């Protein structure tokens, strides 16, 4: 049995108040005189009363007794008694709250979403927070956010808790756990309370130095939503739109789909997702394809209209922005005849320079060059052939010899379907002594093809631009004469198309909207779907930084009130849409199972004493004012 404890034992001096209460009671006990015709009956009453009521003395001072009980209850309430939970509690309690998109799911008919229910549980913990205990609130969605330091200020905790909203992003549990890991280095705690609906990644790649108390919220609301949306250009003016619809595995779901292009419906479909036969193991899904005409830039919006109850609303809409259709601009010097010849076969590619006096293009998507320096025009994707980057001059030399390809990354977009076996080359890149592959990676290069003495093809990403380095010159190799050469050039073109978003577009996911290229050194205001305003500045190159996008919808970039860009963000998270809940989180060495037991906390008793004091007050009032008993009507 746990004996009650007291948080404020220092208030025990209040018991001294009983003394003045008793003194004042008896001092004030001055009987008012009342003249009556005769004492005859009253004397008889007193005599009978003494005979009939052995507790007369007790009853005589009933008011004093009630007042003492009232005061005792108030003093005990001031002592803040509590019933210990039976376990030793840590003084510091971090609470990790999942506020990813699935926490916005509504499972009950009262309209409360999962986050609201969790907030009620946490609020109860805050209300019962012992005076010498401190609590810290952390939220985790796609990233973790620490809302409060360890504090015992309940108002601060309540305000922070009330401010938590659902982020319409996929959950990344790792972030929150790592933040808790960082906290434990500054404040010692043994347990982390994690409130979630269980819709989190099942595997965590590290272990925790503290216990994870996994509080999983049960929920079985049916849901259907869009989890994938991308577009691929099928011709100069036509795009194929690919959609994936998924639903919860434990219920049959159905929906009507509407595809809107710039606000007008251009396609509708019906979807019926059967309940998974093996229950929660397989996620029911369906792929759909639409075809739309689009020459200029246009915005597509896919709306899912569920037929029946739908737990999660944020996955019922997705946005994708189609770019303006145009030919790919490729610059290849005239001396690279093999490349120009291969490029000339592509109808969607404009090869520059067209002739010796031709006008250069405004911008280039692909540059193929065998020289370095500022003479080369700028392009998003650059293919250097027979060029050693300046920063690799210390690592590699090119010797004349007989080189050949030993191995290459066949799944690389540049080299897929390209057969490099038996390609002979006069240039033989040779790695200097004591230089390893890791040294190239440290410089930011990825080796795509290996020769006998060193790397042959390298890849490097610099900001938004992409560069491939052929350390040998194809003109001094048998590569242009191989069947794989046109395929290689086609892969180059495809890489440029992908980089320019001309061939395939994927819908942006919520979380972060990547930086955009706008007018240099300008002030922009981004209006978010939840009516927030984010002010950003573009740098001298016109690049504005990426912004946090935790809401599904369209983000409008405005300059002096004028709309200059609009980008849609969609949830597109299969895990969130499925609302699948995991019972166990697997860490690197241990696993944590969700706890079914409610969290035990010290039970404060002061409200009961306060209630008892109020009851005694009412009884005293009633006793003082009551109609005498036994009076005939």
């Amino acid at each position, binding site marked *: 049995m746990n004996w009650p404890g007291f948080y404020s034992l220092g208030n025990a001096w209040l018991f001294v108040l009983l003394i003045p209460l008793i003194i004042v009671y008896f001092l004030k*006990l001055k009987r*008012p*005189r009342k003249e*009556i015709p*005769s004492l005859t009956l009253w*004397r008889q*009453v007193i005599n009978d009363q003494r005979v009939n009521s052995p507790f007369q003395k007790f*009853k005589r001072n009933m008011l004093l007794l009630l007042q003492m009980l009232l005061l005792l209850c108030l003093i005990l309430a001031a002592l803040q008694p509590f019933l210990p939970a039976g376990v030793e509690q840590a003084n510091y309690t971090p609470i990790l709250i999942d506020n990813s998109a699935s926490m916005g799911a509504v499972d009950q008919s009262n309209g409360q979403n999962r986050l609201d229910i969790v907030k009620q549980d946490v609020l109860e913990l805050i209300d019962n927070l012992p005076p010498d205990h401190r609590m810290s609130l952390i939220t985790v969605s796609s990233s973790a956010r620490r809302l409060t330091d360890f504090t015992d200020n309940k108002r601060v905790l309540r305000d922070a808790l009330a401010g938590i909203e659902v982020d319409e992003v996929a959950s990344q549990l790792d972030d929150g756990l790592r933040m808790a890991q960082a906290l434990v280095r500054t404040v010692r705690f043994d347990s982390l309370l994690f409130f979630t609906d269980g819709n989190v990644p099942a595997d965590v790649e590290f272990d925790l130095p503290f216990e994870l108390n996994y509080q999983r919220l049960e929920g079985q609301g049916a849901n259907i939503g869009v989890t994938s949306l991308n577009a691929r250009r099928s011709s100069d003016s036509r795009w194929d739109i690919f959609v994936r619809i998924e639903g919860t595995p434990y219920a049959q779901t159905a929906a009507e789909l509407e595809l809107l292009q710039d606000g007008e419906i251009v396609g509708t479909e019906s979807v019926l997702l059967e309940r998974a036969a093996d229950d929660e193991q397989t996620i029911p899904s369906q792929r759909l394809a639409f075809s739309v005409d689009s020459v200029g830039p246009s915005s597509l919006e896919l709306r899912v209209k569920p037929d029946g109850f739908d737990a999660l609303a944020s996955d019922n809409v997705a946005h994708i922005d189609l770019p303006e259709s145009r030919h790919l601009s490729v610059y290849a010097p005239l001396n690279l005849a093999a490349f120009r010849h291969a490029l000339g076969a592509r109808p969607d590619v404009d090869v520059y320079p067209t002739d010796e006096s031709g006008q250069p293009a405004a911008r280039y998507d692909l540059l193929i060059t065998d020289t370095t320096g500022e003479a080369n025009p700028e392009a998003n994707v650059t293919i250097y052939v027979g060029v050693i980057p300046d920063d690799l001059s210390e690592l590699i030399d090119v010797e004349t010899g007989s080189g050949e390809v030993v191995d290459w990354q066949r799944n690389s977009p540049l080299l897929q379907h390209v057969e490099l076996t038996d390609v002979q080359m006069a240039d033989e890149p040779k790695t200097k002594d004591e230089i390893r592959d890791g040294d190239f990676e440290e410089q930011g290069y990825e080796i795509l093809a290996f020769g006998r003495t060193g790397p042959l093809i390298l890849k490097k990403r610099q900001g938004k631009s992409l560069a491939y380095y052929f350390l040998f010159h194809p003109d001094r190799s048998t590569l242009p004469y191989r069947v794989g050469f046109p395929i290689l050039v086609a892969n180059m073109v495809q890489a440029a198309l992908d980089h320019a978003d001309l061939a395939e577009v994927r819908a942006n996911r919520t979380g972060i909207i990547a930086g955009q290229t706008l007018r240099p050194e300008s002030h922009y205001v981004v209006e978010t779907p939840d009516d927030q305003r984010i002010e950003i500045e573009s740098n001298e190159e016109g690049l504005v930084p990426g912004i946090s996008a935790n809401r599904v919808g369209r983000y409008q970039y405005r300059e002096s009130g004028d709309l200059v860009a609009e980008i849609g963000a969609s949830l597109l998270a299969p895990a969130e849409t499925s609302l699948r809940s995991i019972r166990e989180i697997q860490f690197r060495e241990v696993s944590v199972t969700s706890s079914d037991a409610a969290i035990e906390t010290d039970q404060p008793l002061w409200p009961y004493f306060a209630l008892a004091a109020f009851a005694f007050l009412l009884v005293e009032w009633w006793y003082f004012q009551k109609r*005498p008993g*036994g009076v005939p009507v």
Partner: protein
Amino acid sequence: MSDSAGGVQFTSLLDNDVIGRIERMRLNPSRRLTNRSHGEHLAGKGGTSTEFSDYRDYVPGDDVRYVDWNIFSRLNRPYLKLYQHEEEMHVAILVDASTSMLFENKLLRARQLAAAFGIMGFMNYERVSVHVAHQADGEPRVMPPCTGRINFKRMFEFLESIEGGGDAPIESSIEAMLRRHRGRGIAIILSDFLSMGNVQRAMNMLFSAGLETFAIQILGPSEIEPEVTGDLRFVDSETGGTLDISSAGDLLGLYHELRLSYEDELALICRQRNGRFMVLNSTDSVEWLLFDALVRRGWIQ
């Protein structure tokens, strides 16, 4: 003294119209407790009243004035007509004028009732006497027995002159009254009967004296429905004695039990001695008491 119509008001105790109605009423004793002196009450024995009783054969020596000559002329035999004897009844009214009767118009109501009973007595040629008790050891003030309507004014003046105050217990007052009273009839006791003494002994003496007891206990609202709470110190109005009461509200139930049982006891004492008892609230109107309550109980008719 004048009434609202401009006429003379006989007394401040009762309105003239009430007096007029009372004059047509009479006391209704359950027993014939009369005196030998001539009066208005039939004595159950032969007499000289106009109330026919019976016939009997004439015997020599009978007063020939009572021979029924009509029968003699038809039967040729003398028969004597017998008449009932009407005797006088005494009405002794005792008004308790102690200090306890000064509360809540109790004494006023007692004086009004005494006046009403006196009027009934005078109008029926009873011998009416009024006794007023004040001090415990002193003799009551007395209006000597008298009869006839001519004594209205005398009685009204006597009753109007009563001033309350004193500590006379009712049983002592009854005994003092009986020391002076002679004659059988009715004793009307108007008191609150709040006495610690032996009322039973006084009632026995009334019965022995040939007086049928009409006991009327007059209580005020504070005695019938006391509204007291908390801790109080009660002070006796007559003796000045005090009694401390705690949680008076709790005792009211017991108070009512005792009051009702005391009333029952008084009623039993009176009933066992062929008397009558009733309790009046001093706030009840005298008209209601006279023309409704007492009539329905058969005290007057």
